[in-house]
């Protein structure tokens, strides 16, 4: 392959792709294009340490490896279209750039609620600028916060808001328990209780109908007609993949960009996808393509995709990462290995005591362990390491 490799998206996936392309032997031109004005930075602290004011913004920047020192960074630049047949991308300044290889690493953005009402006072947390703006509001004395969406990010933000001394923190979700989709009800119940004990209020089983207020949000109107007063609203209702720029190329873009088992896009040897935006089959499980929004995936997928893109993939086994996730909420930590969501029908306590907040939970499919989640203390963490090794040894799961 000649010409240059273009990496679309300058976050964790884009950075790791650039580094791994160099590690895989690519010595040609390498350009990373990203629409944020910042060099790649770490997102998980945005809902935790950064929002809490415990980590300075400057501490978030990744330090690129020396091997990537000659990479060209085009920041503050959006790719508006791609023509894969012609091997070009079009940038928002109207210029067109040709490539020999393309890495899709454009990630996701928060989904927004489409209810009537004012926009001001409603926040999402995806970027540095989002976190900065939300922190300014959460630190106002006596602030009342409503978080819409009881997933990981919503629960982290709620915990952080309580820690910052917010007067009221309420989480609203149509589902009956927080984080129940990815974790199942055993842990979700424990987490609900722990959040409530630490001052978070939950209104579960109903959705949001509208936002009250004229110029700025003053409340959240629920489906049952009640209105919750709110000075700040945080919407954490899932994410949408940034794939619009790939439209018109005959690709499958339903929920991310579909890849094959080697992260190739549209059957093209010179286009790969990494990170949150990639919907890939995991050879470790049932082969159903899924997007996986875990911090570990951009690094794992970039390692694999770089080899494929430079043709250093002779004998390379299909992509089969062990997904890894963590979440910090209040004074406790969750650590997840494998794919708990594939084993929600058979959840077992492997070790410890859920009510004591130090527990190891196993998720099974057809009697096979497919995921492990540790909540809390050191016993759980140590046990998780042992079960993680077991997970790596399991045969591929067949549907």
């Amino acid at each position, binding site marked *: 392959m000649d010409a240059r490799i273009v990496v679309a998206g300058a976050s964790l996936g884009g950075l*790791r792709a650039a580094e791994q392309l160099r590690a895989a032997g690519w010595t040609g031109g390498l350009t990373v294009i990203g629409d944020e004005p910042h060099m790649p930075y*770490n997102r*998980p602290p945005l809902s935790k340490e950064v929002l809490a004011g415990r980590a300075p913004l400057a*501490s978030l920047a*990744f*330090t690129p*490896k020396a091997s990537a020192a000659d990479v060209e960074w085009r920041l503050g630049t959006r790719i508006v279209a791609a023509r894969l047949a012609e091997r070009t991308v079009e940038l928002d300044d109207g210029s067109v750039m040709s490539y020999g290889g393309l890495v899709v690493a454009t990630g996701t953005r928060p989904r927004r609620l489409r209810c009537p009402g004012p926009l001001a006072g409603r926040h999402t947390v995806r970027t540095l600028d989002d976190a900065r703006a939300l922190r300014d509001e959460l630190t106002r004395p006596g602030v009342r916060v409503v978080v819409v969406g009881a997933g990981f990010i919503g629960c982290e933000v709620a915990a952080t808001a309580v820690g910052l001394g917010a007067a009221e923190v309420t989480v609203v979700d149509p589902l009956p328990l927080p984080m129940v989709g990815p974790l199942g009800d055993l842990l979700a119940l424990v987490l609900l209780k722990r959040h409530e004990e630490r001052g978070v209020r939950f209104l579960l089983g109903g959705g949001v109908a509208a936002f009250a207020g004229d110029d700025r949000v003053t409340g959240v109107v629920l489906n049952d007609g009640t209105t919750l007063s709110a000075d700040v609203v945080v919407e954490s209702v899932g994410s949408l993949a940034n794939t619009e720029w790939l439209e018109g190329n005959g690709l499958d873009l339903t929920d991310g960009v579909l890849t094959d088992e080697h992260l190739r896009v549209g059957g093209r040897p010179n286009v790969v996808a990494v990170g949150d935006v990639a919907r890939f089959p995991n050879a470790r499980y049932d082969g159903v393509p899924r997007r996986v929004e875990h*911090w*570990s995936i951009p*690094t794992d997928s970039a390692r694999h995709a770089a080899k494929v893109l430079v043709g250093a993939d002779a004998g390379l086994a299909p992509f089969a990462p062990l997904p*890894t996730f*963590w979440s910090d909420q209040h004074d406790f930590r969750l*650590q997840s290995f494998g794919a708990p969501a594939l084993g929600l029908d058979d959840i077992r306590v492997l070790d410890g005591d859920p009510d004591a907040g130090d527990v190891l939970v196993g998720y099974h499919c057809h009697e096979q362990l497919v995921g492990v989640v540790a909540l809390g203390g*050191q016993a759980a*963490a*140590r046990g998780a*390491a042992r079960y*993680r090794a077991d997970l790596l040894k399991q045969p591929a799961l067949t549907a």
Partner: protein
Amino acid sequence: MKVVVDMNKCQDHGQCVFAAPDVFRMDDDGHLAYVPDPDDALRDEVEEAADVCPLQAIRIED
């Protein structure tokens, strides 16, 4: 090779231990312990450990 972990950043996630068990381990109290001057043959492992550290606390100096 010289490895430095910023212990102010490290939150004992243990991800580095999975990537490079010859260099990083959790001690009996669940805190990180590591070899500061591992053999150069372990460079790939250590680079992977640095990549997967959620707090980006691991630095490789030369």
